[in-house]
């Protein structure tokens, strides 16, 4: 085979044959260089491009990728108890099939007619999430849970004209960091001040007195989570929302949608804006690349006019009794108004919205009830079982869902040391909280989902007992 034939690349039809010459001839230039004359010569590369060898052969590329990735160890090979914002849930096979479809995987954004199916799937994501939340307005998802909170806080600030937000002191440090970026440094004129609501050291719920002392007519929003970062279900959410309302403050609630067959919709205890993660609904962890966040509220202009998200509305077509779907309120986004738009809008995580739509259709009302109950009972069993081990205690005694904090102070061992030994036994222990929350001592955040069973939990208990006894 000649060199030219080998230069032909499988991804580039015009790298073969005479296509380039024919096109150059039609343009009327002698060579390729003539087409780059817009670029001044001194702007061109100062040294030639040096990259690793080309692997244009699919089989060689596949071998290479698999060889490198074989150095990973994953959560199917190990018994995993890490959660903390990225959770290992069951992903139904059909979710994978649908998001793997090339039509959904590769499209960009056609017309309402030509990409009708994608738009309908996105509308069905919003519609089903709306049923779980009992809310009429759901935007298309944003990058993540933390980003959803950040946008919601800025919405509340615009709605109220106020510039403080109260957030739980017990919050995911990564989510908090995202929120703080959204709220801007103090040097910026539009800075939103972040104040922290202390938590009750025994239950892990919000400290109502501390909240009361910080609420004022300067506070745009109170933000709380159900369950919160450490899995605790806030028991006085309704009181908190009432206190906020009395101050003209918005209540933003972050919730885990997989809990909503068991736990109340936040709107039932007074939430104004509801945010949360999408990843639990049929999306693999993907090393954190599965995260996605939603924003929802009542369908009134007070809220809808502040969304930065793309929104899909059902519409009629020119044929009777037929649905179509189109963008709604796009004019208020940065696509319509540039810097005057609501925050900004861009590529997001829409493929995951389709995965979640499929998940919700499969689970239905009973599936959500069952999975919520199973996670609740198993995580509570795990907390109970593990706290029977000498030296292990529960950091909080509040009601929990899916996650809980174990404390190892009595065992006199560091979480880092324990987790290292668990890892050698093919167990990924809970996330070490000792540096984020030093007041909790040697504590770790454990996550138990529907994927675990009693045997897995008992096995963890056995390993943990042996590790602590060693």
């Amino acid at each position, binding site marked *: 085979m000649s060199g030219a034939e080998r230069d032909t690349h499988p*991804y580039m*039809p015009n790298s073969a044959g005479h296509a380039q010459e024919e096109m150059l001839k*039609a*343009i009327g230039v002698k060579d*390729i260089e003539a087409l780059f004359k817009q*670029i001044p010569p001194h702007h*061109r590369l100062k040294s030639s491009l*040096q*990259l*690793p060898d080309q*692997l244009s052969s699919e089989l060689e*590329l*596949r071998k290479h*990728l698999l060889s*490198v990735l*074989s150095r990973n*160890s994953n959560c199917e090979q190990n018994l995993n108890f890490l959660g903390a914002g990225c959770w290992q849930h069951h992903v139904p096979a*059909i979710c994978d099939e649908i998001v793997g*479809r*090339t*039509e959904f*995987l590769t*499209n*960009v954004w056609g*017309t*309402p*007619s030509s*990409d009708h199916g994608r738009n309908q799937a996105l*509308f069905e994501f919003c519609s089903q999430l*709306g049923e779980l939340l009992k*809310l*009429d307005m759901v935007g298309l998802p944003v*990058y*993540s849970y933390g*980003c959803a909170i950040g946008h919601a806080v800025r919405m509340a600030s615009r709605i109220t004209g106020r510039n403080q937000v109260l957030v739980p002191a017990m919050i995911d440090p990564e989510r908090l*960091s*995202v929120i703080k970026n959204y709220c801007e*440094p103090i040097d*910026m004129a539009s800075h939103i001040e972040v104040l922290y609501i202390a938590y009750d050291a025994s239950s892990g719920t919000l400290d109502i007195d501390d909240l009361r002392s910080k609420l004022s007519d300067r506070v745009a929003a109170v933000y709380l989570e159900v369950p919160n970062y450490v899995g605790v279900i806030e*028991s006085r959410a309704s009181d908190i929302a009432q206190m906020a309302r009395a101050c003209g403050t918005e209540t933003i609630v972050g919730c885990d949608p997989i809990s909503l*067959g068991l736990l109340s919709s936040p709107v039932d205890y007074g939430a104004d804006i509801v945010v949360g993660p999408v990843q639990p609904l049929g999306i693999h962890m*993907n090393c*954190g690349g599965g995260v996605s966040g939603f924003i929802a509220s009542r*369908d009134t202009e007070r809220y*809808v006019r502040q969304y930065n998200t793309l929104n899909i509305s059902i519409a009629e077509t020119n*044929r009777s009794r037929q649905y179509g779907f189109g963008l709604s*309120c796009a004019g208020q986004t*940065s696509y319509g108004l540039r810097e005057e738009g609501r925050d*900004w809008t861009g590529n997001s*995580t*829409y493929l995951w919205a389709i995965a979640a739509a499929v998940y919700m259709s499969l689970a*239905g009302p009973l599936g959500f009830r*069952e999975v919520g109950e199973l996670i*609740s*009972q198993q995580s509570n069993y795990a907390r109970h079982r593990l706290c029977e081990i000498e030296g292990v205690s529960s950091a909080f005694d509040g*009601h929990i*869902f899916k996650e809980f904090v174990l404390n190892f102070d009595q065992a006199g061992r560091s979480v880092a040391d324990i987790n290292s030994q668990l*890892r050698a036994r093919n167990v*990924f222990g809970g996330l070490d909280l000792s540096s984020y929350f030093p007041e909790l001592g040697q504590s770790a955040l454990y996550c138990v989902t*529907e994927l675990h069973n009693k045997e897995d939990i008992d096995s963890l208990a056995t390993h943990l007992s042996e590790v602590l006894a060693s």
Partner: protein
Amino acid sequence: MSQKAKLREYHAAVWDEPVVMEMGGPGRRGLVFREPEKEVSDIVGTAKGLVPRSMYRTDLPNLPELSEQEVQRHYLHLSQETLGMMGISLFGTCTMKYNPRLNEIIASRPEVSETHPLQHQDTLQGTLELIHNFDLILRELSGMDNFAFQAGGGAHAAYTHCCITRAYHKSRGQLEQRNEVITSIQAHPCNPATAAAAGFHVITLPLEEDGYPSVDALRAAVSDRTAALLINNPDDMGIYNPHIADWVEIVHEAGGLCFYDHANFNGVMGKIRARELGFDACMYMLHKTFGAPKGGGGPAVGAYGCTAELAPFLPSPVVTKELSGYGLDYSRPNSVGHIREFWGNVPQVIKAYSWARAMGAVGIERAAEISVIANNYMESRLLKIRGVTKSHPTINGPRMEMTRYSLERLTEETGVTVNDVSNRMVDFGIDAPWLAHHPWLVPEPITPEAGESYSKEDLDYWIDVLAEVVREAYETPEIVKKAPHRQAIPQINGDALDEPEKWAMTWRAYCRKHRNENG
């Protein structure tokens, strides 16, 4: 017209698919979960007893009840009602290209999909190695010193730059003073929007006769309040600003940072390096230029690269390489922290790495050349079509990887708009072409980008379709105005979309507003 014989009699799948909320029947199940073991319930009791009474959900969510196969068929039908890239998609500025299937298969394996971002780094050596090596590839392409992948899209990378700009000026005690960001009216809306969302005032430079803002306009805009310049080049009209290095110098002299929005990198890959032009930072879209799929709007990655001077401010963690292996560095006191949880859309980064390895240096350079040749070839044919002109028609010479055209004359002569044309082109299996961001500086704009993935016949087909639609516009305009005729649904009636009493973003809202139901 002789070309008409070649045009396909395409027709989209028409499934008349109900909304999923209307489907199914009581009690049907698509997903069941077991009960907990008896010992578990014996110990913890019922789930209801494990929830504070006020927080227990008493009603079942009003979701559809469907069997497994019904769900599968419904969503397969919807996928079939999505044209997207199934035909030819030359959606300008988005650099449509083949998304290698191998990468999807690799990314769906548990080595990637079933990994947790907080796993101990010893258990993620493979992923970290790929990310590090991809960082090296981007460094070689850009001349930058470090890349981070936390941004979930191009706009998010622009936002990252605004956060880093804040941190940089704050570290020098100048943030309060430096509160202005400069961009151009031709820059993507995300540049001014993310700057404003980060708290900056935005100065937008207008275009002048050369197709880009003048050096004088930039000089007049910079001051000791300048925080940064956010600029793309070449722009969406395919025009390369030959003064861009001078621009960077002017902004640097004023004390500002320069961010290169490399959304339009495809035509200059391996031809220029952002750092060699003086830029402090740049951004590549892995879901565009680097062969990862778009997913109809993400998950995406805006790979953000910067100089060593700015690297301490990069979002955390960053991937490191030590003698002992690859690691994740979280202890970076000057970092802006997180702009999103975890460390990015890892599967997309792996797909982009794989694409870059498959292409190699020679393939990447070739792709840039082919995309520029293909665009100029299209121009040579498109400008012969009645009613088609290009932006800044007085600027002669080749454009880069895309050209913005105007159908203004067609609209004047026939009443057919570019939206009508777009609606008609899809009838021939052509994905809706990109028009332009608002504001429309060029009337009735249309912006195809050929890229390197489509064959010459594909490009000819696209041009033939436009020629046919233009012929129809002059001869039988109603066909175009009432298009599409061969799609899953005809034109939607957009009247309700922006009316609060009519819009409905959920089925609940639709039932309440249009069916007088209480949801």
